[in-house]
């Protein structure tokens, strides 16, 4: 690229253009004005005006999750930057590639407690892969190049570039670097993969299980996973971020395990003799009480982040590397081992699993119920769309009902806040996902508490005429917390009942989008049809569900994985 004499602000535009950024989610403010001015009239990247920076961050996450590309958001200094913090933390926990660019007060004012000054690099240090405070405009092209590189490579994650206003205004000779050279950042790993050892364990196991996490989606390795799973023939379980890594409609898949996993999936993990963990991190929400987790299982752990290996569960055979590159090699080793020693016989193991599956199915009973059950709502949505939709969720009971009943068959089809558990994630991530995949059906499954945390950005969705459909499973409670209060706090419902405000149908009307309500199966059937038919803009559906319905089965926090409440069982 030829050199050109431009301002730091224009350099940001040039960098975003060079990186092929399609959308930037943000809101202008005093210290990021030069950058917004430089972006004036820019068609690609297109600016998306959100109404709160947190939404900009989550929308960028939704875009990244749905497309596999880096999400980008802007914020001004001070509150604009601190409003981004929740989204950045969310992206950090869920390994979402995100570049946040913030304005800051002029370098001469930094440290003086100037108006709208916040030490955002200090604040976001623990929740970014890396961040930069630009103090010399000549560093800016290199830093922006590095920012995108660090965000998307290795284990992806958020980065932040903080650019003081005077740096944005300084003219310099701009040239965007072609490559990066960061001496301390080398995503490829040095350890020799012990593929043969892993193959021996896999070949020798009689009760193996394949445990898929978000890493499968991140490395786009679902085809490689499918080949591996077919060869090994072991049952497959997933985390909430592993949904879509393997078709949940396949009989080989036992769906999600963990705190709200099915009883049969949890039993299969707990009684396995080998866990093959692919792109997963043994989070406490899936292991239950760690000291009693799958006591007889050896562990083959494949992950790109060496720090995840043996962090919580000691790996018998650690394999560090990119799943997409390494898994075919492992498949090959297993094939060789099986050719030499024969295929292991998993028939007895499958018989046990099928017995569990028959005895403890994931189920609900809508018939005879006075009110709609949330499980029925998700199940009906799935059936009426043939499961062909991208689903985004908030956080709470509705999220777990969605995870249990939306049978995901493709990667990047279930977008949720897993690690941080950020309420308010549904609407923003639906906005980002719909922009990223314009021709596809995007359905939000939200809760009334979660929806109210970011609902102001209905305005953004209406402005953009995005045909997203948000189904609010409205139980007039902060339902998941209420569930814990009912089960573990002797039914003292401290601050969890919500009042019936706002009227979501009127709210939709006020924002200029379609608002619908359903209280019965018949009404639900109708409103789903209406929502699916509305291509003009967003649809908000207020689905009144049974208020006391709880998510089962449930592994109480700190209990062993096979010690579940309800949902049948011993």
């Amino acid at each position, binding site marked *: 690229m030829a050199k050109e004499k431009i301002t730091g602000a224009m350099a940001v535009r040039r960098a975003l253009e060079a990186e092929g950024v399609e959308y930037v989610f943000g809101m202008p403010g005093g210290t990021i004005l030069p950058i917004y001015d430089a972006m004036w009239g820019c068609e690609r990247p297109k600016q998306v005006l959100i109404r709160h920076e947190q939404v900009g961050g989550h929308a960028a996450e939704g875009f990244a999750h749905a497309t596999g590309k880096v999400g980008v958001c802007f914020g001004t200094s001070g509150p604009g930057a601190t409003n981004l913090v929740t989204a950045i933390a969310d992206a950090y926990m869920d390994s979402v590639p995100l570049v946040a660019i913030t304005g800051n007060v002029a370098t001469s004012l930094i440290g003086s407690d100037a108006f709208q000054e916040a030490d955002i690099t200090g604040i976001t240090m623990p929740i970014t892969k890396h961040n930069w405070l630009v103090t010399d405009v000549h560093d800016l092209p290199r830093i922006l190049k590095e920012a995108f590189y660090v965000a998307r490579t290795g284990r992806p994650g958020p980065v932040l570039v903080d650019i003081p206003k005077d740096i944005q205004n300084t003219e310099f000779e701009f040239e965007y670097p072609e490559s990066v050279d960061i001496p301390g950042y080398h995503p490829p790993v040095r350890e020799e993969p012990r593929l043969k050892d892993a193959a021996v364990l896999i070949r020798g196991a009689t009760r193996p299980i394949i445990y898929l996490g978000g890493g499968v989606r991140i490395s786009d390795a679902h085809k490689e996973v499918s080949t591996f799973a077919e060869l090994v023939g072991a049952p497959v379980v997933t985390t909430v971020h592993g949904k879509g890594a393997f078709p949940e409609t396949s009989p080989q898949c036992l769906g999600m395990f963990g705190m709200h996993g099915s009883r049969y999936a949890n039993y299969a993990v707990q009684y396995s003799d080998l866990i093959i963990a692919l792109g997963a991190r043994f989070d406490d929400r899936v292991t239950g009480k760690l000291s009693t987790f799958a*006591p007889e299982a050896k562990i083959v752990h494949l992950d790109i982040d060496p720090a995840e290996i043996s962090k919580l569960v000691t790996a018998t055979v650690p394999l560090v590397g990119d799943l997409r590159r390494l898994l075919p090699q492992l498949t090959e080793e297993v094939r060789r081992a099986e050719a030499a020693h024969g295929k292991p016989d998993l028939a007895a193991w499958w018989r046990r699993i099928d017995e569990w599956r028959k005895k403890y199915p994931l189920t609900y009973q809508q018939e005879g119920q006075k009110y709609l059950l949330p499980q029925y709502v998700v199940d009906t949505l799935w059936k009426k769309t043939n499961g062909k939709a991208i689903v985004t969720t908030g956080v709470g009971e509705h999220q777990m009902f969605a995870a249990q009943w939306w049978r995901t068959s493709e990667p990047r089809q279930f977008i949720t806040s897993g690690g941080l558990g950020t309420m308010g994630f549904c609407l923003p991530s639906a906005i980002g996902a719909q922009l990223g995949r314009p021709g596809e059906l995007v359905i939000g499954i939200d809760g009334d508490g979660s929806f109210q945390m970011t609902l102001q950005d209905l305005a953004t969705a209406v402005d953009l005429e995005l045909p997203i459909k948000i189904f609010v499973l409205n139980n007039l409670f902060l339902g998941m917390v209420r569930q814990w209060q009912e089960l573990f706090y002797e039914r003292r419902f401290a601050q969890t009942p919500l009042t019936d405000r706002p009227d979501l149908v009127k709210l939709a009307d006020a924002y200029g989008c379609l608002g619908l309500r359903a209280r019965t199966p018949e009404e639900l059937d109708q409103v789903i049809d209406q929502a699916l038919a509305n291509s003009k803009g967003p649809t908000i559906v207020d689905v009144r569900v049974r208020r006391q319905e709880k998510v089962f089965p449930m592994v109480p926090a700190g209990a062993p994985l096979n010690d579940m409440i309800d949902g049948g069982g011993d």
Partner: protein
Amino acid sequence: MERTEEKPNGSTHTISLLVENKPGVLHRISGLFSRRGYNIASLTVGPTERSEYSRMTIVVRLGSKTVEQVVRQVQKLVPVVEVRELSAADLIERELMLVKIHTPERNHAELRALAETYEATIVDVSPDALVVEASGNAGKLDALEDRLRPFGIQEICRSGRIALERGFKTLAPPNLK
């Protein structure tokens, strides 16, 4: 199968880091230690043979499993070029100590003799105080400190450990070796 990682009191480990010499790097590293609950016994940082890099020596008391985890977490920080736990057997470690002792002049001779035994020097003398400077490994300095205590220690300042490995091995990425 091992499942939980206890955080035992553990033993002393020396971690050596080569880091980019840039603002905020110390904050990134100490922040990582504190937010993951690893206590730092001592931390030193200073320039190296190349101006763009600094060397840090961090001493921790942790179980060896946890130390492995610490090293992997630290390695992920972008400005950390290289990090390794230095094996106790291959270690040259040094620490610097200054001790101010309030003591009448009549004790000075005895103190001089003591200092000599520990290869320490007396670097400041006034009528009722003197300052002893000593260097060596932590054990030697602890011993000297114990011997000086009866004379009336007023202030101690210890630098924390610096360390290098014996022999040819260095802590640098291949392109810098």
